[in-house]
């Protein structure tokens, strides 16, 4: 009997929890096959010996399996003719067992070689994909969200691996088995062979059609399943809110609706699944029926022997799997190609930010600054420009940047850190157009604290030392002290070695922000950009941290985005942005006089002044 794959045609229950399998097959613009091949061909070439030997083993197994019925036939014929002897039967049985042992060994060989190859290929493509992603710029990530990329990494790679592993095996196996089995059958009786095979093409076509449809319905079910998961997750996360608003029954009713949809989707899948399996059996049995009736007539008319008849039946059984496999393989290959196409569209995309080649030995600038000239910028997906002819000079010193939501503060930070491309002649770093400078060279000058602190699942110490490998514990502690997080860290169970992130300790928003600041301080770079990075820290701590920063960053450039007047008043130079332009700039007192927004913010935040607060 032919090799069965361990993954059946498609079982929706195989992996119900796989993350977002539910990605509709988007019709990414078709890419010529030659380009797609470039993704996997190098692996095929590198492992050509492995693949070739694996395939050879597979083909030998197929032939050995086909030989077994020959011995059976010999035995039955001898028995029917009455010429059989015990020793002859014993010899036949022994040969059959010997062949079976060879089959076991060779099967191990091809599995190890071919399926192993598909895993190696998967690994190569996965690594290539990740390496590529690391090089991409912000516009790319705007287009491909994390969920999207995660799906590529798990599902698409899986599909490619399946197509190149089991897909190749099943295709070769099915081809060899069916051709050989048909040949053997034809050798016994060509006409009977044709008759026995009549149901098979129908089976192949039906399997192909059905499993394509099954895949679609299955995708829908998976989508509903992830909705169901997400719904219960968010409900349970916000259980307090649900209870406070007595939404229990309401939520349960919505859950019920989703659940019913899920049941219906599953039943739709079951209809197809319920057809595929019995259909295969039916096709096999129909072939049997043909052999029984017509073959039986041939035996009666003595055109073929009874041994032929029995061997015929055995070969017929051998054909059922290859026929089902053809439909399955076609789907597998198609899915693999679609996935390959998507992976290709990722690896083929180039960053919009062009990185000029590094001029060798470019020295670091000790006191760098930015000059912004008529900077206009719109996001790739945006219709209106976010920055609109903004001009600004940010030399050594402490700069505060403020403005309403959407005035362009964060965008400015993103451009300064070169996450998005800018046009020539708009942004200058230490006197050179940024487009002339290698990204890594420019970024090596900047320490950055983002709005949302980004921490990784690792120890506290490793998170702080992210920008400086090999920083000593003293340096790490010093940075933590400067960011006023040291005491908090000391209180954690394992101090600096405490794991944070998914499996570790949860930190508060303020703690996370101070940790991100400590990381930036440890880098000790000449330029510090803080994009509203201490919004969750109370003002007293913020005050303390910034007083320290003033000394630390004396003569360097610090750019701080904030909406807190107290913080802004501590800077040397404040810029108020509005609609992507500089509305006003100057020191605290100047802005209080000239800028209406700044004054309003001040009045709101400092209202306690005129309500009797005694300032120190």
């Amino acid at each position, binding site marked *: 009997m032919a090799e069965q794959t*361990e993954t059946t045609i498609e079982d929706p229950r195989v992996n119900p929890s796989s993350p977002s399998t539910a990605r509709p097959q988007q019709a990414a613009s078709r890419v010529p096959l030659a380009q797609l091949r470039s993704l996997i061909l190098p692996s095929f070439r590198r492992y050509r010996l492995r693949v070739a030997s694996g395939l050879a083993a597979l083909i030998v197994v197929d032939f050995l399996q086909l030989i077994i019925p020959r011995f059976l036939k010999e035995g039955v014929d001898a028995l029917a003719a009455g010429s059989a002897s015990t020793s002859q039967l014993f010899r036949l049985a022994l040969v059959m067992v010997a062949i079976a042992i060879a089959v076991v060994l060779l099967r191990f060989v091809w599995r190890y070689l071919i399926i192993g190859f598909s895993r190696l290929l998967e690994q190569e493509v996965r690594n290539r994909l990740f390496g590529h992603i690391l090089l991409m710029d912000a516009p790319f990530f705007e287009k491909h969200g994390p969920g999207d990329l995660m799906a590529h990494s798990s599902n698409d790679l899986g599909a490619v691996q399946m197509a190149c592993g089991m897909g190749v095996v099943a295709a070769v196996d099915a081809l060899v088995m069916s051709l050989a089995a048909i040949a053997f059958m034809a050798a016994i009786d060509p006409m009977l062979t044709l008759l026995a095979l009549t149901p098979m093409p129908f089976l192949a076509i039906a399997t192909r059609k059905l499993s394509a449809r099954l895949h679609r319905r299955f995708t829908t079910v998976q989508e509903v399943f992830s909705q*169901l998961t997400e719904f219960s997750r968010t409900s*349970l996360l916000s259980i307090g809110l649900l209870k406070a608003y*007595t939404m229990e029954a309401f939520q349960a009713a919505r859950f019920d609706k989703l659940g019913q949809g899920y049941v219906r989707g599953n039943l739709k899948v079951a209809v197809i699944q319920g057809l595929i399996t019995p259909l295969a059996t039916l096709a096999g049995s129909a072939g049997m029926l043909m052999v029984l009736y017509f073959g*039986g007539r041939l035996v009666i008319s003595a055109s073929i022997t009874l041994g032929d008849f029995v061997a015929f039946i055995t070969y017929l059984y051998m054909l059922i799997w290859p026929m089902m496999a053809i439909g399955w393989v076609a789907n597998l290959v198609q899915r693999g190609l679609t996935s390959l196409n998507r992976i290709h569209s990722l690896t083929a995309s180039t960053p919009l930010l062009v990185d000029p080649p590094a001029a060798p030995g470019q020295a670091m600038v000790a006191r760098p600054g930015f000059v912004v000239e008529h900077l206009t910028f719109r996001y790739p997906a945006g219709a209106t420009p976010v920055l609109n002819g903004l001009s600004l000079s940010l030399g050594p010193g402490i700069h505060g940047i403020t403005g309403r939501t959407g005035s362009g503060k964060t965008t400015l930070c993103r451009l300064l850190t070169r*996450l998005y491309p800018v046009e020539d002649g708009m942004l200058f770093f230490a006197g050179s157009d940024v487009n002339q400078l290698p990204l890594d060279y420019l970024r090596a000058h900047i320490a950055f604290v983002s709005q949302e602190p980004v921490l990784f699942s690792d120890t506290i110490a490793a998170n702080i030392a992210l920008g400086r490998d090999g920083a000593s514990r003293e340096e790490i502690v010093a940075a933590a002290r400067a960011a006023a997080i040291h005491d908090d860290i000391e209180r954690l169970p394992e101090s600096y070695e405490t794991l944070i992130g998914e499996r570790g300790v949860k930190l508060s928003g303020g703690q996370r922000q101070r940790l991100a600041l400590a990381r930036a301080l440890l880098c000790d770079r000449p330029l510090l950009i803080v994009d509203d990075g201490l*919004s969750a820290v109370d003002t007293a701590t913020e005050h303390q941290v910034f007083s320290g920063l003033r000394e630390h960053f004396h003569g360097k450039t610090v750019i701080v985005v904030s909406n807190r007047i107290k913080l802004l008043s501590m800077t040397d130079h404040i810029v108020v942005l509005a609609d992507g332009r500089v509305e006003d700039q100057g020191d605290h007192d100047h802005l209080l006089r000239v800028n209406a927004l700044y004054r309003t913010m001040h009045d709101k935040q400092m209202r306690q002044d005129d309500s009797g607060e005694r300032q120190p």
Partner: protein
Amino acid sequence: MMDFGYSEEGHQGSLGDLRLWRRILAYASSYRMALVAAVLLSLFLTWATLAQPYLVQTAIDRYLTAHEMETAARLSGLGWNSLYYGLLIGLVFFATFAQILLLEYVGQWVMHRLRQDLFAHLLRLDLPFFNSRRTGQLVTRLTNDIQNMNEMFTSVIVTLFNDVLRLAGILVLLFAMNPPLAAIMALFVPLALLITVFFARLARECFRDIRSQLAKINSFLSESLAGIAILQLFHRQNASRATFFALSEEYRRRTFTQIKLFGIFMPLTEFLGSAALAIILWYGGGEILQSRLTLGELVAFISYMRLFFQPLRELSQKYSVVQSAMASAERIFQLLDSKRHIDEPRLPLALPDPRGKLEFRGLRFAYDEDREVLHGLSLVIRPGQTVALVGTTGSGKSTLVNLLLRFYQPQEGSILIDDVDISQLSLERLRTVVGVILQDVFILQDSLLANIVMDTGRGRDEVEEILASTGMAAFVARLPQGLDTPIGEGGLELSTGQKQLLAFARVLCRNPAILVLDEATAAIDTESENILEQAITDSFRGRTSLVIAHRLSTIRRADHIVVMAHGLIVEQGSHEELLQADGHYARLVAMDLKNGL
């Protein structure tokens, strides 16, 4: 507190747990008829599957090898035989299809009911329960564990039942034909079972290793993607690449372990089949030579052998499925059995027309046994009065709200609304009388209108009226599609201020007698803040209101300010009085209110 033994993989349910089976069957009992039909189909299918080789055998023995018969009689006999065979395979097709659908139907609806029960049960449980559980765990119960149990209905009944039945049937037939040969064949059963069960165990571990490594890759990837800008700015690409490659290599290594395992075991069952075939030929052939077996019987033996090994392989595969399904069932029922800590009164009072008097009487409360948060707090709020709660983090302000909503039960003391102890009210009534606006909102993925109305059944006009009367119409007017703007995932993302406005509108729809506001601590954009101030002024008028205040403007609007510290009220009075007193409050104000979150 009871622990559920959160061991998704390690723990295996016991197949012999009758109590568990009874509960599962109780759920399935409303689908009794369908299940009986499925069992009948099973019996039919077993009979039909076994009848097929029998028909071939009779054809061989009666007609093909019957050289003494007339050719015409042999041909017509063969014709009839073939006709029966054709009818049989048609019936098998339809019966199999019907059985698969039937069981899927029953399984899915039973699971739906179970999932629904579990979800409703979870929603009824109180907050202390959730504090000791991880959400992910509970979600797993609701989704994957139930999914696992579904296997019980489709796999257990179909496969176990069909396969066991078929195996038994085959053995009976074989024994009837030739007892010694049948006995030899029967030896293959324990052998094959042993191999496959052993294999199933190894394979499970193998898959678990692979899955956990894939999960590692995925979480590393997800973290890297979330922090890609930071990675690039801090020049971590090479280090990340190295980590990823190592993870990926380990994954590849684990898949190779699986390949080897499958490489050894998958061909082994096939080998057993070939060996059995060889024995049949050798031994059976010998029996024919001694005329103890007919040639047709030998061919039938060979066919049955083929039928024999297929269920054997499936049985062992399903064995582990059933085991994990039982484990899931156990976890689900345990969760369904968990009790809540706060009891609702058997005969709740209606409190038909609340005036809104609110009294906290000698409250003592601790979340953990050893750390008391409230130490005998008392406070009376007159109907229509607005009280601002002020104090530093940990002073017990939020705890007070948690107790008022009966999320937790005070260890001592009571809370009264209109002189009625809130434990005399149903939770639903209590939470309708007391409307809360928390810092966070639960947003449905729907229009703004649907998010405001929820299940109150209010009309669009009413909502518009409420919004207009509290100045919140301006908030809606600023949204692209007004009340019809889709919000939540995939829709408009609301700012902190807008979220609080939504919560406000939502609560006002319920027209509560007592309003509780937990003011947002995070910065709110100026425009939202202006609207909010207006809304607070308008909606507090004529309502008993309790505000956990962070903004001076809100505090000054209150009739009465209550300053809390370390679980006690340390000062109360008006803004001016308290500033005069130059105590806690004056210090709090001086320290900048933002500090006193």
